[in-house]
């Protein structure tokens, strides 16, 4: 190697080092945030229609307004984009009157036709929104969101033409009755099919539809090239005539439901139903519109910047009609999913709120009665699923014995410390305070009765009981709970149980394939209504995953969905939960408790059983915060 080049190497290295460090730390004029919180894992998306998780939700609640809001303490439905609404006597028609001063952060008015278009996008199968089923109570919404097109139905065909001004807008629509749906073979033979999928779908390349004598097919279909069919991007049920969502005028939105759905109004306040800015999406496309320089927002905050797996920075949205409610101008949501790291940041006063903490720390904080830890029972249940399709768990008496042989209080206290309530009902107790529905409990602990039931099922003293396994996803707490339950079943019922810890993805997969005996699980309310817990166990329900099937139960849940809210409906639910708590495809164990670490200088921090804490309602004593930060300041300079 020539000497001169070798002499340059150290300098080149130093220059590269400087450049790399400089590049990483070049943050133009960022000021410290007024409020910093640990938000958990990196949000999947900022698009409120595409997300399902809590970290995503915390951002979406701040960025996007909904038709209605939930009171931050009581969760009662209160006006938001809709300033008032009327519900028909049969609870099937909703007329929302929108406020006239609602605007996107770019100044564009939020009106009823815009909300219809946004909900249409939510239901469009091409959007692939996981929560689209939240709108299924609406007439025709399910068929639209699953893209079902049948001959004889009114359909809309989206032509494959783009408007250069709005490159991501839907193409022009041809609407009419589908005269025929099917495929055409090379020799011209027509094969009618019952339903066509999206043209963009994988197995739908061959499908054509005939509207008023004209054939439409996906752009790469051979008949399109031959000029015998017109290129179309999608064929869906006709939204305007088949789906019960429409705008009567600029400020009136009308929604028609298939059945009275008492929780529908509540769902209108859930983040997936947030209207999205169609004028921006049509210009930038998805996910392009979620970038910091494109996105426009409707909530009390707007997006300032986002760094992957680092932070989402929110700033007060001056164009929101609620902007005066906001006290924290700049808020940082840190993407940190390690509980230990979150705790270290909280203890060094680098964050004002941590949304969770590791189990070992939780126990410590509870035992020393630390005032920064806010415990609050959630509408959330920790339970075990029992696979009712596998012997011996297919015997109801065995399931009952497993339940009655458990001393829940001892187990739950050992794992989570005091302050974690046990549960004998599947619907958490908090539901009674929230809706008036009193959950039905399963029979309480009774070891002698458990032994008797087990003997009746053919396993006296546990003799002959096949070896079953408790499956859980790898986690210290889940492991400990399974060990305690294993020990109790052994000592009280004389049965041997094995434990299996699994990786999260594999665990979920095993559960949905019913490839387990006993599996740990948890469920949190989507909306404040017993239905969010009880409709899980409909026969073949996506979240049933126990093989449980009871026609009587299915009938009751269906009846409840037809019954307007009130005592009669609660009685139907109670009857259903009685069946569930007698059949026991699940063993309810404990009510989950939200554990938030909130700094002492936070003066207002609204709490509710859904663990939602709207940022605009949080208040901070800035003097106390700065004093505390000063006192705890790091000698090496804080973040």
């Amino acid at each position, binding site marked *: 190697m020539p000497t001169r080049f070798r002499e340059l190497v150290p300098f080149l290295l130093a220059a590269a080092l400087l450049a790399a460090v400089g590049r990483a730390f070049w943050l133009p004029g960022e000021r410290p945030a007024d409020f910093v919180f640990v938000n958990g894992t990196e949000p999947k998306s900022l698009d409120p229609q595409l997300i399902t998780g809590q970290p995503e939700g915390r951002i979406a609640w701040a960025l996007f307004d909904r038709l209605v809001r939930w009171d931050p303490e009581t969760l009662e439905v209160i006006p938001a984009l809709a300033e008032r609404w009327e519900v028909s006597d049969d609870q099937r028609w909703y007329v929302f009157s929108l406020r006239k001063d609602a605007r996107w952060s770019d100044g564009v008015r939020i009106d009823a036709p815009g909300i219809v278009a946004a909900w249409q996008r939510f239901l469009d199968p091409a959007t692939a929104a996981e929560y689209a089923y939240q709108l299924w109570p609406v007439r025709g919404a399910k068929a639209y969101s699953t893209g079902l097109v049948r001959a004889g139905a009114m359909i809309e065909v989206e032509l494959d033409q783009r408007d250069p001004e709005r490159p991501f807008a839907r193409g022009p629509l041809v609407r009419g009755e589908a005269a025929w749906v099917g495929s055409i073979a090379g020799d011209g033979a027509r094969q009618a099919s019952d339903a066509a999928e999206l043209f963009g779908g994988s197995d739908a390349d061959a499908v054509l539809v005939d509207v008023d004598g004209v054939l439409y097919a996906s752009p790469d279909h051979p008949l399109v090239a031959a000029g015998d069919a017109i290129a179309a991007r999608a064929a869906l049920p006709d939204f305007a005539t088949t789906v019960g969502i429409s705008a009567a005028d600029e400020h009136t939105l009308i929604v028609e439901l298939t059945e009275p759905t008492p929780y529908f109004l509540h769902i209108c306040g859930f983040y997936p139903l947030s209207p999205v800015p169609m004028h921006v999406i049509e210009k930038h496309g998805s*996910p392009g519109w979620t*970038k910091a320089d494109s996105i426009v927002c409707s909530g009390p905050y707007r997006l300032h910047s986002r760094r992957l797996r680092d932070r989402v920075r929110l700033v007060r949205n001056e164009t929101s009609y609620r902007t005066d409610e906001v006290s924290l101008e700049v808020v940082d949501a840190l993407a940190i999913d390690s509980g230990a790291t979150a705790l270290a940041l909280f203890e060094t006063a680098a964050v004002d709120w941590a949304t969770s903490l590791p189990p070992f720390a939780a126990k410590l904080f509870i035992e020393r009665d630390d005032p920064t830890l806010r415990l609050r029972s959630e509408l959330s249940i920790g339970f075990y699923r029992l696979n009712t399709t596998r012997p011996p768990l297919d015997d109801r008496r065995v399931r009952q014995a497993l339940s009655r042989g458990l001393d829940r209080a001892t187990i739950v206290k050992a794992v989570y410390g005091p302050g974690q309530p046990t549960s004998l009902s599947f619907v958490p107790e908090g539901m009674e305070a929230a809706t008036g529905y009193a959950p039905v409990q399963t029979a309480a602990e009774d070891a002698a009765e458990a032994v008797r039931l087990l003997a009746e099922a053919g396993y006296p003293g546990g003799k002959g009981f096949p070896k079953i396994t408790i499956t859980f996803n790898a986690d210290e707490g889940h492991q400990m709970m399974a060990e305690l339950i294993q020990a109790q079943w052994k000592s009280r019922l004389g049965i041997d149980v094995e434990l299996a810890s699994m990786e999260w993805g594999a665990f979920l997969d095993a559960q949905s394939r019913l490839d387990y005996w006993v599996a740990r699980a948890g469920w949190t309310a989507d909306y404040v209504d017993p239905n969010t817990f009880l409709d899980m166990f409909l026969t073949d329900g996506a979240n049933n995953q126990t093989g449980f099937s009871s026609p009587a139960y299915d009938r009751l849940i269906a009846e409840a969905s037809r019954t307007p809210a009130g005592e009669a409906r609660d009685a139907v639910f109670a009857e259903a939960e009685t069946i569930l708590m007698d059949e026991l495809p699940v063993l309810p164990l404990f009510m989950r408790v939200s554990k938030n670490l909130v700094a002492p200088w936070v003066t207002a921090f609204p709490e509710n059983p859904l663990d939602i804490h709207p940022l605009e309602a949080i208040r901070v004593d800035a003097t106390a915060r700065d004093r505390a930060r000063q006192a705890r300041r790091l000698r090496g300079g804080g*973040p």
Partner: protein
Amino acid sequence: MIAFLVRRVAWLMATLLVVYTVTFFLMRAVPGGPFSSERQPPPEIREAIARRYKLDLPLSQQYVSELSRLLRGDLGMSFRLADYSVAEVIAEGWQASASLGTVAMVLAVVVGGGAGVLSAARPGGLVDGLVRVSTMVGISLPSFALAGLAVLLVVYEWRLLPAAGWGTLPQLILPACCLGAVYAAEIARLVRSGVVEAIQSDWVRTARAKGASHSRIVLHHAVRGAIGPVVSFLGPAIAGILTGSVVVEKVFAIPGIGYHFIEAATTRDYTLAMGLVLLYTLLLGVAGILVDLVQAALDPRIDLEK
């Protein structure tokens, strides 16, 4: 030289294809998928999502369509970070990982190299003893233990440095030290044994006979003999350190690609995981080629054409 490069690049391409293929089928053989969730949507929605992302196609068809997209230079959209393409994720994460890695590597070379030379200068002395003990500790201590210990002492006990985060210089120090420590220990060990061996060689004895001072012998003559093994070690080490450290990035909440990699694997983010596996393979391959070139430049006995 040219023939060498052509041959190695061709091998690298073949390796990339094999790694891609194996990873593709392994990822999909693992149970679960990018849309697995504790909260399952109804089957109709699941099917619509699978169709939308072409996950309902037979594996062979998926493989062909993914590979042809890759050959067009498109790594695709991330499943789990849905607002980003894989290229965007790598571009953003790379900055953090590369900055952290560069600082850590420079620390490792300076501290490790220095300690190795000092230690070899007086074998069996006090400095040598200290260095040998700390390199043993450095090599055998897993990085999560080291990082945990560092947080306990430096952050909680002494309150010297911030606990985590990314964006300021103080936030860089602790993770860079934790990440660099293992490499520093390894380099110190290599340098020490290289220098000690060289000191006993004939040419060093000749230099000594000619009247060269001990420090000149160690710094000028013996160190050169130790450079070879260090360079061989640095090649893959640089590739490894630049692609980020899973543990250090997670503990200190650093938005680098090591963190993305482990998350992509556990959440079955097929596209992101594939993109990162390819990146890692590419870096390792390129580092290997560079090491051979540097070795050849340093040591005339090595002939690249063979």
